[in-house]
């Protein structure tokens, strides 16, 4: 469960915030934080192991830092680049070459 946020309110307007989860595991805390952050249009930073913190009341929590992503034209940009080139070999085949080398 999300037990604390910073800031405590107005999360739909802020550009960054953190969320404290008291979930028993790191993965479960990530799920809770991602879900709550998503409700406010925020995205967790790319940090797999969440920091553990003890709250003033003694509860141990895991903390996820989140930000509001700025709009990106990545999809359109890559689309334009792809349209300017011939069709190549599937990356499925390219990764298979690589993965089979590791057998």
């Amino acid at each position, binding site marked *: 469960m999300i037990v604390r946020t910073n800031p405590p309110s107005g999360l739909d307007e802020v550009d960054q915030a953190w969320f404290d989860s008291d979930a028993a595991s790191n993965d479960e805390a990530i799920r809770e934080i991602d879900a709550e952050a998503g409700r406010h249009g925020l995205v967790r930073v790319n940090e797999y192991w969440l920091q553990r913190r003890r709250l003033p009341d003694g509860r141990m929590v895991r903390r996820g830092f989140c930000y509001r992503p700025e709009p990106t034209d990545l999809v359109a940009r890559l689309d334009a680049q792809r349209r300017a080139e011939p*069709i190549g070999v599937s990356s499925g085949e390219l990764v298979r070459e690589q993965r089979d080398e590791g057998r």
Partner: protein
Amino acid sequence: MVPYIVVDASVAGAWSYNEPYSAPAARVLAAIVARRVIALTPDRFGEEFLSICRKKVRPPHEGGLSLPPADCWGRFEDVLTTPMPLYLVPTPELHERAWQLSLSMTRLTIHDAIYLALAERWGAELWTLDDVLGGPAARTYAAVRDLRRHDFPH
């Protein structure tokens, strides 16, 4: 609740370069950017995607597109630095399960099994364009989705 998906590097290659399945792969990227899904991938995704980019620099008779190196590096950086919910998960977390999975199937390499272990751990769909992940691996984990045969629903 926004669903988690696991994205194979082969899908990132197809959304970055013109390939037979670029259109469905681009829909996966669009869903990540729009935060309709949260994408997870093993941290080795970076090296695999970089290797795809390197191969695109090669001439066509070697499987590449003769693209300028700066162009390919730019696409690599673009994908990995754009703010979007694409999370690299440390592979040591997945080693034990990947080991077990790789022993359960002859064609499955450790590299394949890492992806499968990640998807299994998160109960996530695994989207791929790879014959092994999309073929034999799909028999051990029901949520494997080959983008060549499944429409991306998110």
